[in-house]
């Protein structure tokens, strides 16, 4: 109970913007997972490539920003993996 209260009232908790911003970034990861069943011709090389660089940069940002934002780091780490996978599928589809 005390742990839960500590989370709710944390300076990077759900009462703050430091929480919901990273949560919204999970949308990219969820979209990536949903698109894993799409055939490679339907994938956008532009967008997937950009998202790979974007999440790599923001993993570093999340680590260096104060307060350090582990949720942001995690959401971008997840996105990085799915986008790299999608990029490999797109590239293989290009032949």
């Amino acid at each position, binding site marked *: 109970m005390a742990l839960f209260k500590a989370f709710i009232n944390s300076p990077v908790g759900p009462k703050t*913007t430091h929480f919901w911003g990273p949560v*919204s970034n999970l949308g990219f990861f969820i*979209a*990536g997972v*949903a698109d894993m069943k*799409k055939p490679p011709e339907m994938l956008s090389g532009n*967008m997937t490539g950009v*998202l790979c*660089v974007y999440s790599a940069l923001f993993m*570093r940002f999340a680590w260096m920003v104060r307060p350090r934002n582990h949720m942001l780091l995690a959401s971008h780490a997840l996105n990085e993996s799915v986008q790299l996978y999608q990029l490999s599928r797109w590239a293989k589809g290009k032949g």
Partner: protein
Amino acid sequence: MATSKLQALWNHPAGPKTIHFWAPTFKWGISIANIADFAKPPEKLSYPQQFAVTATGIIWSRYSMVITPKNWNLFSVNLAMAGTGLYQLSRKIRHDYFNEEETAALKE
């Protein structure tokens, strides 16, 4: 005079030697990639991805205005994301739901 101002910018704690500069700056790439994809046929657009672009754009636009200090760079890049995402969504929705009459007529 100008060089010392430039030096101040160069050495700023959120300046071009730091991730605080490059990560938000690169975020423009998402909107640029989306604008490049305006030329893609709507069948190839992804609802989940465009919804994610739009939603994160709207949420972060709001949040960049409530943090201290206000971050206009972050605000504008997320506003652009929301705008391009909404446009792509409208293209795909129009194609999927409002072109049925035309394609039905063609089939007849």
